[in-house]
Structure formats: C-alpha cells, structure tokens
C-alpha cells in the first residue's frame, strides 16, 4: 500500500515523513516567523498560538506553553523569531522528554502480562499484532489472548496476527466472557513457561461505567495467580483524537491503572498535539508511536524527534 522505496529511510525520516503535515501546519506559522528574523509582536504570538491549537494541543496547554514563553519575551531574552522558535522547541521537548521510556517486558515474571485497552477503533488489535512481531523477533515466546469477545470477527483478526507470527492464540469465540479468556491464556502461559501474554480487550467508550467495570474485572482476574499481573496496561490512543483524549486517559487510568500509551495513526494528517496536554495533566510513558501500516512502522517514542518533526526541524 505504501511506497516500498522509502522503507530504508530510517526512523527519523519515516517519522518526519509521517508528521510532515503537522509540520505543514505548525511550520507554516513557525516558518513565516523565521523569515528575516522578525521582531516578536502580537501577530507572531497569535500565529504561534494558532499553530499549536491546530495540532490539538488544546486551549489550556497552549495557554500554558504561551505563558511560559511570554516572560522571557518581555525580558527581551527572546528578541527575535529564531530565538522564539528554539525556545518553543525546548519547551515542547521538556514536556515530552520525561515520557520517553523503552518498553521492555519484565523478565522476572513468567509470564509478563500486557493488557491493551482503548476506545473503539483506536487500533488495539493491530498494535498488539505489531508488538507481537517485535517480541517474536527478539526471541520471546508469546501467547495472545483474544479478550475482545464483543466485536464481530475480532477473534479472527487476532488469530490472523497469531498466524503471521506463528504464535498461539487463546480464544473462546464471540460472546464469551473476556475475563475467562484472559485468565485461561495467563494460566496456560504459566504452565508452559511462556515469556509474555498479550491480552486484547474490546474497545469501549470510557464514559460507559458498566463496560469500564467489566474491564476492571478482566484486570482483577489476571492478578489472581500473580498479584503483579498485569505488568503493563497500554492505552492505545488514535492520533486523530481531540480533547477527548484527556477523558480517555483519566477514566481508563481510574478503571485499570494505565502504565503507558501507544499513539497510532500518526502517518496521516493528525498529529496528536494532545500529548502535550496529557503530559501536563497525567504524565504516562509513551512507549510506541505508529507511523505507518507496516510492522516496522510501530516505533519507540522519542521526544526530540517527535518535536523536531512537529516543528519541521527548522
């Protein structure tokens, strides 16, 4: 589907290619600022604010970012647009840098249990499949748990990923009890000394109290034989999501204790500026970002290259 020739471009190229449209919107503003080292005036600041808002940074976080730059502008520490741009990049990087954390499966516990949660259509099953490929390539033994027992053919979709990676999928079919599927998978992995269990769950909107309660139950069941399980709870977030991402993180965190984020679909025009708002409100490690459909397009998150790609690396 995507052009094969670009695959060798390396992470940064792919990322900045994926993020090029954000660069389009942010850099359109920022790029204009740069021309001729203009003096910073109201118009420049408004353009900058606009650029941030357009990437879903959100009103509150944008205000904060702008507010952190203003005193330095007033004190003339930032006296031209080039300096302003550099200061902005530093500011944004500082916000996201603490969220960089490599995703490594806990080798102490066998199995290490990783649970995938998120709203409908965020890309949980696809992300799970890609992480399965990564782990298989690292030589880990895996079991996939088909915990999405609600959506039609979700089990078949996971089985296809299992097939591609030659990994066993524990499933009971549509309509089965999700908690029991996951429990079986964990038990079976433990009995056979498997390294990692990747547990899929059905997508659900975070405002649905009963569905969130069901998700908490799935989590409780995992801890039955090993109190430390699940070792990771990954919230999968669609890059296109707007300010609702804040509520998603809040409520999923409340229900199951999110330990990290995966941001999907960053190869489109959506840029997930909401991550800055999330970082300010409830910082969680960002383990992976998805910048394409291929397995190798699920990349570890790197704050510097994310921000550089966002700002157009000027």
């Amino acid at each position: 589907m995507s052009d094969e020739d670009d695959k060798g471009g390396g992470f940064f190229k792919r990322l900045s290619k994926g993020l090029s449209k954000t660069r389009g919107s942010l850099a359109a503003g920022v790029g204009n600022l740069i021309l001729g080292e203009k003096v910073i005036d109201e118009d420049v600041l408004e353009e900058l604010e606009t650029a941030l808002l357009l990437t879903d940074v959100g009103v509150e976080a944008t205000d904060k970012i702008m507010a952190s730059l203003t005193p330095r502008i007033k004190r003339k520490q930032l006296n031209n647009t080039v300096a302003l741009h550099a200061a902005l990049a530093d500011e944004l990087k500082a916000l996201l840098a603490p969220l960089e954390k490599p995703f490594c499966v806990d080798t102490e516990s066998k199995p290490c249990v990783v649970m995938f949660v998120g709203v409908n259509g965020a890309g949980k099953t696809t992300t799970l499949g890609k992480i399965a490929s990564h782990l298989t390539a690292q030589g880990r033994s895996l079991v996939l748990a088909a915990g999405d027992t609600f959506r039609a053919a979700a089990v078949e979709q996971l089985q296809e990923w299992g097939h591609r990676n030659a990994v066993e999928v524990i499933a009971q079919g549509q309509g089965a009890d999700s908690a029991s599927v996951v429990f079986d998978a964990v038990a079976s992995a433990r009995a056979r000394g498997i390294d990692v269990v990747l547990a899929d769950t059905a997508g659900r909107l975070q405002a649905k109290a009963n569905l969130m309660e069901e998700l908490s139950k799935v989590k409780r069941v995992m801890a039955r034989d090993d109190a430390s399980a699940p070792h990771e709870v990954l919230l999968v977030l669609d890059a296109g999501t707007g300010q609702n991402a804040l509520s998603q993180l809040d409520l999923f965190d409340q229900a199951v204790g999110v330990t990290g984020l995966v941001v999907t679909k960053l190869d489109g025009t959506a840029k997930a500026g909401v991550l800055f708002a999330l970082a300010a409100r409830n910082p969680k490690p960002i383990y992976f970002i998805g910048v394409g459909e291929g397995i190798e397009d699920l990349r570890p998150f790197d704050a510097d290259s994310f921000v550089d790609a966002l700002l157009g690396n000027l």
Partner: protein
Amino acid sequence: MFDSLSDRLTNTLRGLSGKARLTEENIADTLREVRRALLEADVALPVVKDFVDAVSRRAVGVTVSSALNPGEEFVKIVHAQLVELMGEDNDELNLNAKPPVVILMAGLQGAGKTTTVAKLARYLAERQKKKVSVVSADVYRPAAITQLQTLAAEVGATFIESSTDEKPLAIAERAVATARTQFADVLIVDTAGRLAIDDAMMAEIQSLQGALQPTETLFVVDAMTGQDAANTAKAFNDALTLTGVVLAKTDGDARGGAALSVRAITGKPIKFLGVGEKVDALEPFHSDRIASRILGMGDILSLIEEAERKVDKQKAQRLAKKMSRGKKFDLEDFRDQLQQMSNMGGVGSLLDKLPGMGQLPAGVADQVDDGMFKKMEVIISSMTPHERRYPDVINGSRKQRIARGSGTAVPDVNRLLKQHKQMQKMMKKVSKKGGMQKMMRGMQGLSQQGGRPMPRRR
C-alpha cells in the same frame, strides 16, 4: 467539565446590564470565551474563526432586555447560529435509482465504517422494508470481511462473499451484478479505512465511486476526532462526491465538535449518528441536540430517549400501580430505582446530560458518585425479603447483621434507611390524588422560564 458556557459568558458580560446594546467592543471578551468553548469541543480552528465572526455579526446591535441575563441571551445567539450552520434535521437517504441502489462508505481507519454498514442495513430493512445486500471491499485489514459477514447475519442482510485475493474494484463490480440477481433494493459497499494523504488508496476509492455510481457516498467520522477532522473531511470531499456524513461513537463523553467542522467544510448534511455498540444504535441527526452538546449545555432530549430505551417499563408500571393502590414504596422498589439508574450509565452520565448542572458548585458533582449508589444497592441486597418489605422491623441487631453482610457500617445502613424514608414521603405526595398534576404544574412553571438553568446555590 462542569463550568457552563452560559456562566462563563455571563461573567464576561457583567456590568453590561445597564447598557442597552451589544457592541463590538463590549462583546470582545465574550467572543473569546465562545472561541475557547468551541476549541475545547474540538471544533476545527478555521471553522471556529468563521463561526465567531458570524456570531459577532448576529449579536452586534442586539438589545439586552433587562429581564434576561446577558450571558443567556448570548448563549441563545450562539446556539441559534450553530443550529443554522448544522443544517436541516435528518436528511433521508436518497434511494431513488434503479435497484440495486448503491451506498458507498468512506473514512479513516477505525472510524466505524463496518459497524455503520450493519446499522444502516438494519435501519433500511426495518424502517423502509428494503432488501439489503452488503459486501466488503476491505482486502487489507485482517478479518474485516469476516466481521461484515458476522454482522450481516446479525441484522438479516444478504452477505455477498469477497476474498482478500481480489481487487476491491473487481469485488464491487461483481457485487452489483450479484445484488441484481438477488433482487436486492440496496447494496451497501464497505471499504477499507484509508488516510486522506495516501494517494494510492484515495485513487482506489475514487475508482470504486466511478464504477459503482452510488446514489449515496457516506463519510464516516469519529465523534472524538480533533482538529484533523477538517483536513480529512476536506481531502475526502475533494477526492469523492460525498452525499452525507455519519457521525460515529457519539455515545461517549466527547463534545463532538468534529460534527461542526465536517459540516462546515464539506457542506454535506450529517445524516446519522452512531449512538452505541449494538446494531440498532443508529439515530437520525438532530442539529439542535448536537448544538447543545457542543456548547456543553446538556442534551435533555437524548436523555429522555435513553431513559425510554433503558428503563424497564414493566417495573415502572408495576411501581406506579402499586403506588396508586396506596401501597408503600418499600426497599425493594428503592433497589429497583437504583438499578435503573445504573442501567442508564450511572449518575455521572446523567448529570452530564442535564442542562444547568454546570451551575452546581464543583464539590457537589464530585460527591455524587456511582459508588455511593452501588453501596446502597448492596446494603438492600443484604436484607431479608421481609426486611425489604417492612423496613420498620429493622432493629439494632438486624442493622449490625446487614452492615456485616454488605461490608459497610451501621451508620451507612442508618443513612440508607433515612434516605428511603424521604423517598417514601415523596412518593406518597405523588401518589395522592392530584399529586402528580401538582408536580407537573410545578415543572411547567420551570420550563416557562425558558429553560433557564437552575439558580446557583451556595
């Protein structure tokens, strides 16, 4: 979440009541708040700009009547402008063509296309008595075809086979021929999710539209989408001749500003809303409801509809009968009420939909949590049927047993019994002759104030 727009606008317009007219100068701050509110609801920035200008034009010169609070007056203007922009309610699907009439679905990955296909198939079959066939041209996502097959069986639509070895165009052309031999009235063609910047994939769906000549090409968009809704809608609208929009996943807590963005940018009507995971959860679009929601003003109509759907009518009628016979409202009835409340998604989701809830002091909203009601339910469940029917027999030692059984303490049980007493008193009033009418009159009084939010209590 709980600060209401009208409150915020009122603040910016404070001190205005003496002045007779709204002018560009005295509404500047207010417009900033409107802009902020729309951005918080994820309306795309370019759309916000145009919208705020339009509101400004509409507002300047308006006389603030001394009776109305200027903030509310302003909300009315904003709301009216929103409704106008959103367009007509529920544009029906155009099925005026030689059968099989083709409906083509388009959208990003994970927007909700396949689920929407099933919902539409069911809608057309049930409401319009159409014979519907469906086919999937998604040869990329694993099990996408199986997903549609399962859903088709669920909604009683005819599923036309396809395989991942085929080209989408070949699938589509074959499906039209097959649907014709099946004497289907409508053929819905599901497609793979695609990014608007993926040229090869956009060319593919263009060729599908060219070959199928659908009467409807529906763009499915996720209600939680942020600023990108504008880019995506524009790209799809440029590449395809769209005829309408389906806003999916509106049953969450997203404010749904994407609806306004897509509508403003494509100019195409929003035809349906996806309101749940089940295949019957598809509703015709109503502009005033979405407008209220985007403004965070609550959505009382949806609330009523949801209540009608979820509340167990038989139980409600049984209770009404019981009351009218002069029977007491016992703890069993109380528990039913609590359960119905949690069926509707809990107090939190109810509060969100109620207009005026923004006026509540922040602490109040946090105090009412669903856990509290769950606890009450558990306490009642720990009683014997006899105790539930005759709460007066519950003495000290019984209270201790109930507290132990429900994992609570005696004061919790006492509190519950007191709350039940209050409910009982209220029910008695309602069931008295003329009580209901009196209550309804009271409510009418409320609505005559033009649906003004409740006064702030301190």
